[in-house]
């Protein structure tokens, strides 16, 4: 009896899985590379690539089948001797820079890099003028007294 109930509970738990594809994942979706050095490279890269199905997650964080297939691409390409930067370029050539979490300076993103520098310069300018003014004010006051 208990065994039957257990079986029913297990089937109920498995139902949502049936809606997904039932294929085994790609070889390197959930398996690390044997060489720890290469795996570290692959893992660092996977942290900065966007999962296309679950767009707020990296492919390292996501359990979506497509993220698994992307991890397989990353690991097998690293194993084949490609550099992480080459693999990032390969994906950006297919999906645009949206696929990468690593910020890039491009024709649309340059203000993001330019504005902080500009703001710091303006603030520095204002600060220098104010401090300079206060000092000379103080000198004036001293001279009067």
């Amino acid at each position, binding site marked *: 009896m208990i065994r039957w109930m257990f079986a029913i509970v297990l089937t109920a738990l498995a139902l949502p899985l049936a809606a997904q594809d*039932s*294929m085994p994942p*790609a070889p390197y979706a959930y398996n690390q590379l044997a060489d720890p050095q290469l795996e570290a490279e692959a893992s660092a890269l996977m942290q900065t690539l966007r999962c*296309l*199905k679950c767009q707020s997650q990296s492919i390292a964080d996501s359990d979506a*089948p497509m993220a698994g297939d*992307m991890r397989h691409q990353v690991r097998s390409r690293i194993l084949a001797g490609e550099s992480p930067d080459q693999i990032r370029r390969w994906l950006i050539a*297919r*999906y*645009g820079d949206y696929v990468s979490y690593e910020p890039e300076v491009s024709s649309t993103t340059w203000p993001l890099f330019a504005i902080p520098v500009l703001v710091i310069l303006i603030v520095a300018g204002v600060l220098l003028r104010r401090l300079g003014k206060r000092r000379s004010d103080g000198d004036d006051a001293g001279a009067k007294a």
Partner: protein
Amino acid sequence: MRKLTLWLPLALFAFFAGLAAYMLTQEKDQFVESTMIGQPLPEFALQPAFDGLPGASKADFTGKPKLLNIWASWCLPCIAEAPQLEALQKQGVEIIGIAIRDKPEDVAGFLAKYGNPYTRVGSDKISEVQLGIGSSGVPETFVIDAKGVIRYQHIGDVGADDVPVLLAELEKAQ
């Protein structure tokens, strides 16, 4: 003048609050478009996805513009687009399918149930070709010209309104 600059931070805040409110009311575009339009298909040769039809390779995209349909038997919107693909096939369009992460028996079952508009169906078990052409989901339909160059991408299921668009894009790819 002094008074005006005092209001400046509040004005900035109101501007950004307004911007946020506006963006929240706008529909979010979830689609990631392929940046491979105008690029040739990558080299690939896929095994047949089931016993009934041959597999698919880059070499099959010659002679005339064809449709490349990325689909899967486990994908629900693929059922919705099946009648439209059949209508396109009836109008003489050659559709080559790529089944993503699929099993032969599931592919055969799906085609028996919802109709088979394909001349070839390749099996892409690890989404390799899908990633290679910048497709980010199922279903997606690409127009490929006679030289094997990707000319147009349709994301999501093909609705009745999309049939004339695809026909026009095929015409443009001549």
